[in-house]
């Protein structure tokens, strides 16, 4: 069967009508302060920064820039709540507050979805079907743990760590906040969280939810800002634990800067996951998996399947089908329900991606992009693949964090594994084969924390997620995710 005969010509002869999600029900304030003690307050130095819509470059809101004094104020509020109401409360009651957050998020889900897409550029289909419902589900799941921790740590008694400082990235703004806050609260900690500077808005909306759920003041505090604000949290002497999701580069700095302080830390860092396609895989499904693996959320995914390792005998077929499929992907308005790939999150991230495209070509790889038309304003990148790359190429070794896939081939399973494991990262991986025994053989040997077999980019509150090697320390999610927020005593 040639590729031509199986090609789906979605774009020929007819067009998708626009299907924009309405925004008239959305309320975004002109300006947001810092959320401390259940109130929005002015930053000490009175500075604000703008957050924009990356699809239009239009202003959305201005957000407070937290400095050391603000972080101290937030930590003090969190400490007071930790020593007061939050600790004295029955664990089951703590759970009830977290359930309230889950329920209000479910009620306001559409509003959050639209704001997430406006602020971050991701397709509304993804924010509506994945980010927001999963965020609510995380709160729901961990709410239930609050009074059941004895069963998570048999034979030991757990106690909260105290005040937790959390710094999260811009790729899944609300979801990352949920991953961080829900288990921290369930275990009895209080939180100071910094959202990413390009995507603070759903955190500000989450602040409203926390206020409306009537959590005791100080239990959850949001300080907005960039790297300096994050550093201020990390280095604050009264913070007991740091939970960070972001780049390996920053993770390393955090690990160094808290060395010797006794602070606990969990780090969720970069990745360069290999999607390994065997000749006996269901090829069409695998192609869908490859597309989902690298083009989901514009490739702004730490566990993205950014490397494709395809068995040589099916390589031509897979690459040809992949190119066909890429042509059908709709790149454009994140608020259009038909959109597959939205806007790149920021100008600087677009620059990073473009620099890697240049590097890839300079290293001798062959670049192929879909021929889609990009909007005139905003930050966009066509879905891109590199073939003819070698293991030492930078586009194979380094995390690009964009819709860019590096394709290699292998002959034997051993060669595939050797290539899959040959990066400093170890966050995730994918295996595609119709043979069950091979799945377990390969997943056992891939040195990474999450392996998807015949699927990719699946997430669930009950399922732990975390990296090996330079992809991080510790797990989030599931029963194992509780470890990060307790001290085991007795």
């Amino acid at each position, binding site marked *: 069967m040639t590729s031509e005969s199986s090609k789906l010509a979605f774009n020929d002869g007819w067009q998708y009508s626009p299907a924009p999600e309405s925004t008239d029900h959305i309320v975004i304030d002109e300006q947001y302060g810092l959320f401390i003690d259940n109130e929005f307050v002015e930053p000490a130095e009175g500075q604000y920064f703008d957050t924009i819509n990356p699809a239009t470059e239009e202003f959305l809101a201005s957000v407070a820039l937290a400095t050391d004094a603000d972080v101290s104020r937030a930590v003090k509020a969190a400490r007071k709540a930790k020593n007061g109401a939050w600790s004295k409360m029955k664990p089951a009651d703590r*759970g009830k507050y977290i359930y309230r957050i889950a329920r209000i998020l479910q009620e306001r889900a559409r509003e959050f979805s639209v704001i997430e897409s406006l602020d971050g550029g991701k397709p509304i289909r993804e924010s509506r079907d994945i980010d927001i419902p999963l965020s609510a589900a995380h709160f729901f799941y961990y709410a*239930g743990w609050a009074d059941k921790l004895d069963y998570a740590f048999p034979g030991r008694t757990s106690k909260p760590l105290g005040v937790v400082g959390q710094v999260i990235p811009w790729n899944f703004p609300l979801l990352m906040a949920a991953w961080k806050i829900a288990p921290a609260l369930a275990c009895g900690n209080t939180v100071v969280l910094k959202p990413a500077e390009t995507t603070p808005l759903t955190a500000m909306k989450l602040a409203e939810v926390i206020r409306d759920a009537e959590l005791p003041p100080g239990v959850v505090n949001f300080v907005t800002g960039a790297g300096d604000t994050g550093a201020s949290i990390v280095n604050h002497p009264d913070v007991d634990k740091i939970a960070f999701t972001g780049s390996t580069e920053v993770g390393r700095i955090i690990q160094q800067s808290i060395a010797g302080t006794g602070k606990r830390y969990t780090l969720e860092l970069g990745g360069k996951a290999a999607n390994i396609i065997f000749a006996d895989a269901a090829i069409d499904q695998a192609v869908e998996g490859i597309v989902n693996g690298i083009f989901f959320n514009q490739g702004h995914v730490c566990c993205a399947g950014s490397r494709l390792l395809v068995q040589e005998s099916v390589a031509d077929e897979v690459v040809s089908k992949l190119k066909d499929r890429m042509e059908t992907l709709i790149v454009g308005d994140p608020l259009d329900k038909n959109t597959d790939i939205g806007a790149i999150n920021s100008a600087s991230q677009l620059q990073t991606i473009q620099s890697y495209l240049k590097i890839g070509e300079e290293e001798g790889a062959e670049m192929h992009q879909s021929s889609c038309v990009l909007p005139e304003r905003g930050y966009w990148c066509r879905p891109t693949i590199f073939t003819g790359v070698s293991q030492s190429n930078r586009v194979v070794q380094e995390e690009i964090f964009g819709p860019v896939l590096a394709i290699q081939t292998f002959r034997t399973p051993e060669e595939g594994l050797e290539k899959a494991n040959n990066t400093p990262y170890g966050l995730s991986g994918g295996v595609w084969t119709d043979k069950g025994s091979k799945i377990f053989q390969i997943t056992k040997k891939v040195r990474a924390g999450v392996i998807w077999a015949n699927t990719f980019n699946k997430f669930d509150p009950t399922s732990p997620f975390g990296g090996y090697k330079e992809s991080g320390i510790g797990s989030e999610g599931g029963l194992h995710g509780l470890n990060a927020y307790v001290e085991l005593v007795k």
Partner: protein
Amino acid sequence: MTMVGPHSRVPVAKTYKIYIDGKFPRTESGRYFPLKDVDDQVVANLCRSSRKDFRNAVVSARKAFPNWSSASAYLRGQILYRIAEMLEGRRDQFISELVLQGLSKRRARKEVEASIDRLIYFAGWSDKYQQVFSAVNPVNSSHFNFSVLEPTGVVSILAPTGSGLLGLISNIAPVIVGGNTSVILASESMPLCSVSFAEVLHASDVPAGVVNILTGFREELTEQFATHMDVNAIIFSDDDGGVAKTIESLAANNIKRVIPRNAIDWSSEKNQNPYLIRDTQETKTTWHPIGN
């Protein structure tokens, strides 16, 4: 029934019916029994359910089992949480009913609140008990071997006599959160809340047949609860020394799992635990080869 003066409104009394297959029929037998208050006044006439009612309920529970047992843990948790929400909204009604059946206002309030909290407690276990009780088994061969819990099937429950709401809920919740379906015989002396609780279930997205609730005489129905060939497990309370032996020997006809829950103070939080869920679960082990 309360007498009313010329200027007050005549209240409309509620008909207490049974709950089978998501509907509220009267017993097919047409029989009733009166519930009286401390002053020997009739509070309500309740259905005196028959063996046929029980058999109908088992048919409904069996029919509901495939979908309920394969619903996601998240969905089952959401539904149990929803039951708690609905009960919270109707707490005054349940407090009044418990008071009618002899509880002090204070005790009634505590029982209703504990019932709501117990539902939340088990809602939370929906997607966690599996994580606590299942295992990956390190067998000494090249196999991926894992054991998970699966619901046993249809569970018949003789609810505790002395705790009309909390005892009822404490026995239903762990059974259904684990994916089983159920048929319950309510407390004979305190049956009112069971019927009202059926109305709560009915408004909480609980699929028809997952919970069926009968009122009636324990002495008359125990044998049927214990012997029915399409019931997989029986939970009973209030053993007076002889009941357990009778039930255990009757249950042997199809190797029912027999779960006694005697002398448990349901009002104590110490008596809520995930082992109550595990009681009506089977263990399934799967072997899968590892190799090229």
